[in-house]
């Protein structure tokens, strides 16, 4: 604080020092209502600015979501809202004005810097300081400062923000193709996460039930963690199913019995090769000594360069059939070493093989095997749940358009099966269990389908799976997989015995040697065998996801 000391001024300390604190307190008391209002004003300003920015971002997000599928839109908007709330709270805390700021704001109300000067002179005892303080107090004492200060609010910005926000919210509720796609993706993601969670829970349940070593648990946890991560990153059903198949295969590799199967198979494959007979026999007997001896003989043959081409070919063929990666790799190393005549490498591979075979723990193998099988089943179940929609479309081979869906199967002509529930296709033709069997059953005849599979149609009523309200028309993208010769079109009439219902029609035809009233008889096995054969040929030639192939083959196996 600078005062020109042009003339002498008195430094009267008596009773003045007490005045200092009074002045400071008095000034703080005066500016308190202004401080509050300045705080509110600053917070309002920041809030309105933040609100405008949030509205603009929401509008951009909503607009983008209208045209491009954006998953979890409401989550993003909620996050935005939450972020804004945090911002408001932080603003309230940090925008609290200092005394200086409040004093400046008060002076601007027409007090001509009296308060700031008094504040700076609050510790001064001079005549001039006292006079100035008195002047300030006299000026302020009758003023109601709180009423003098008017909070300024940028209503234009606020209204703009509100307007933009309303448009953004409105846009969110307007449906569009992109939103439909996004909701499907969300549903898919949810399903994938549920399946991942259920697999995780299944793993924990199995840990409790089975006695699995801690080391093995660690291996399983590591493997499963990566696999489930990969699964969660799936963008499409196909990818998810593929990742589940990969997971299943990886879990299968943990099954020690898997290795046993491989060794049995290896033994069987090598038995026909003279140079490998000893090894084959040792593997069949599961005798480590014999195995080691047989491996030594092979090493001798490599050293003497007496291992013939046929033997190597047999080893290669056997190696390709191994499901265990580790075993397959060791055999490959051995074969390479044999080809190159590298005895040391061959010995190393042989030692590793011997050590791998001898380190199998029979005591825990059953637990691990049970775990592996249970997890594989769980994974299969997840596959089925995830692929229900895909399979229904593929198996039915129909496009779904409209809520009822028009089937694109061949019309049944000539002597045909009855309409109605029975006599349609194979099986009992009744859907409703949502299973593959029902789906295939329906697809075998003149079917009708909805968007999701697992339908049964009885006398025109349709029951269908919960599809989360997605009822938009959807064109099927799949062609018919199989048009069996016994269905519709120009084919030889085939008859399946069924119970005649109250509705529908039936026809009969004389067949030599057979009673033909009310339909005829064709061996069921003939029909199913034909189906199976056609299905096998078709899935080998067409581009179908592997897990679906598996499921189809399982289906026919179960029928058999």
């Amino acid at each position, binding site marked *: 604080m*600078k*005062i020109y*000391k*042009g*003339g002498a001024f008195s430094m009267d300390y008596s009773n003045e020092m007490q005045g200092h604190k009074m002045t400071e307190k008095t000034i703080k008391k005066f500016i308190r209502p202004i401080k509050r209002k300045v705080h509110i004003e600053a917070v309002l300003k920041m809030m309105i600015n933040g609100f405008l920015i949030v509205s603009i971002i929401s509008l951009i997000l909503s607009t983008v979501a209208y045209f491009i599928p954006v998953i979890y839109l409401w989550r993003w908007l909620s996050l935005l809202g939450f972020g804004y709330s945090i911002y408001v709270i932080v603003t309230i805390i940090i925008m609290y004005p200092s005394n200086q700021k409040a004093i400046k704001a008060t002076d601007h109300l027409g007090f*001509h810097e009296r308060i*700031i000067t008094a504040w700076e002179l609050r510790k001064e005892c001079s*005549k*001039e300081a006292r006079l100035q303080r008195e002047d300030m107090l006299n000026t302020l004492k009758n003023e109601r400062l709180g009423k003098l200060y008017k909070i300024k609010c940028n209503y234009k910005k606020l209204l703009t923000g509100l307007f933009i926000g309303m448009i953004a919210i409105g846009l969110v509720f307007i449906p569009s193709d992109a939103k439909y796609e996004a909701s499907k993706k969300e549903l898919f993601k949810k399903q994938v996460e549920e399946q991942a969670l259920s697999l995780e829970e299944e793993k924990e349940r199995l840990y409790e039930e089975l006695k699995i070593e801690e080391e093995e648990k660690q291996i399983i946890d590591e493997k499963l963690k990566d696999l489930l991560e990969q699964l969660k990153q799936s963008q499409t059903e196909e990818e998810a199913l593929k990742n589940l198949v990969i997971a299943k295969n990886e879990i299968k590799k943990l099954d020690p019995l898997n290795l046993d199967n491989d060794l049995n198979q290896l033994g069987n494959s090598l038995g026909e090769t003279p140079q490998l007979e000893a090894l084959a026999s040792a593997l069949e007997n599961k005798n480590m000594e014999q195995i080691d001896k047989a491996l030594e003989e092979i090493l001798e043959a490599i050293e003497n360069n007496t291992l013939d081409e046929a033997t190597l070919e047999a080893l290669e063929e056997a190696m390709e059939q191994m499901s265990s990666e580790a075993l397959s790799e060791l055999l490959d190393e051995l074969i390479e070493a044999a080809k190159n005549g590298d005895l040391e490498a061959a010995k190393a591979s042989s030692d590793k093989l011997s050590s791998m075979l001898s380190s199998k723990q029979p005591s825990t193998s059953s637990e691990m095997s049970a775990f592996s099988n249970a997890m594989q089943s769980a994974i299969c179940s997840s596959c089925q749940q995830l692929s229900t929609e895909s399979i229904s479309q593929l198996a039915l081979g129909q496009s779904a358009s409209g809520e009822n869906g028009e089937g694109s199967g061949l019309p049944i002509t000539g002597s045909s099966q009855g309409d109605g529930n029975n006599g349609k296709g194979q099986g009992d033709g009744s859907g409703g269990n949502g299973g593959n069997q029902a789906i295939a059953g329906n697809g075998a005849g003149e079917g009708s389908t909805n968007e999701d599979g697992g339908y049964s149609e009885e006398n025109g009523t349709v029951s269908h799976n919960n599809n989360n309200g997605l009822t938009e028309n959807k064109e099927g993208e799949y062609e018919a997989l199989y048009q069996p010769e016994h269905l519709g079109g120009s084919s030889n009439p085939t008859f399946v015995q069924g119970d005649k219902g109250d509705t529908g029609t039936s026809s009969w035809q004389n067949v030599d040697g057979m009673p033909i009233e009310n339909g005829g008889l064709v061996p069921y096995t003939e029909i199913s065998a034909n189906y199976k054969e056609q299905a096998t040929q078709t899935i080998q030639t067409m581009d179908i996801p592997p897990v679906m192939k598996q499921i189809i083959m399982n289906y026919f196996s179960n029928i058999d």
Partner: protein
Amino acid sequence: MEQLEKVSVLAKKIENEVSKHIIGQKQLIEETIICLLAGGNILLEGVPGLGKTRLVSTLGKVLGLDYKRIQFTPDLMPADITGTNIYKKETGAFEFQKGPVFTNIVLADEINRATPKTQSAMLEAMQEKTITAGGQTYPLDKPYLVMATQNPIEQEGTYPLPEAQMDRFMFKLNVEFPKVDELLKIVTLTTGTSEPEIQVVTNADEIIEVQNAAKTVPAADAVLKYAMNIVAATHPDQEMAPAVIKQYVRCGASPRGAQAIIMTARVRALMKGRFNIAFEDVRAMAYPVLRHRLLLNFDAISDRKSVDSIITDLINSIEE
């Protein structure tokens, strides 16, 4: 009564008395009093016949001070102003004969008509309040005020004041043509049979006392900083200089300008009944202080940009 309080009372008395004899020109009178109480010199610019001389003479009488008028002409010599040594036959020695500058209030009429040499004779008087002649320095009476006048329209044959001398004037005040009603009052007052008598309201000692008291008016740091920013921003090479300064000003105000603003702002605050300087005081005093200190370039002349408008833009660009 406290000395600070005396300032506003005295200023009011002077203003009231002078206003009885100078019709209108309220702002001119107020600023003249401010400059007087701040101890500065004034440069008055206005066309002839607006009452500049009358103002100075009235002021001198009201203040109870001695007043002299010097009509500057091209043939005026420095000695005519300061005085000279005259040979005294009686004593046989040279005696210094004081010039018209030895008074309390000097009216240097049409100062720009005298030669630069003669003009510079006023320099010492204005700044140092002394006159040096014949190797001897003679102090001038206190309080001392130089009021110089300039005619803005007849520039032929004149010698513009050098910047150094311009800087010694605390204020440059423009004398405006009076309004019609004011003109009527002027005519009524001055063409009648009698004029009211001028009352003396103060004396030299009181003025000196008040001048000293005015220097103690406190100023908040923010206000001082604001004044410094304004002065610094008058220089086009400064970062904070606004675009208008960079475009139209050749050279800005010196530190004397900053001193002048603060000194006069103190007096103004007291006259307004306050015991502290406000931003408003700084803004109000910026005009008379900077008017003659900003050297405009050719762009300003060709664009007919007035210095007051430049000062307005400058003030608007500086934040408090």
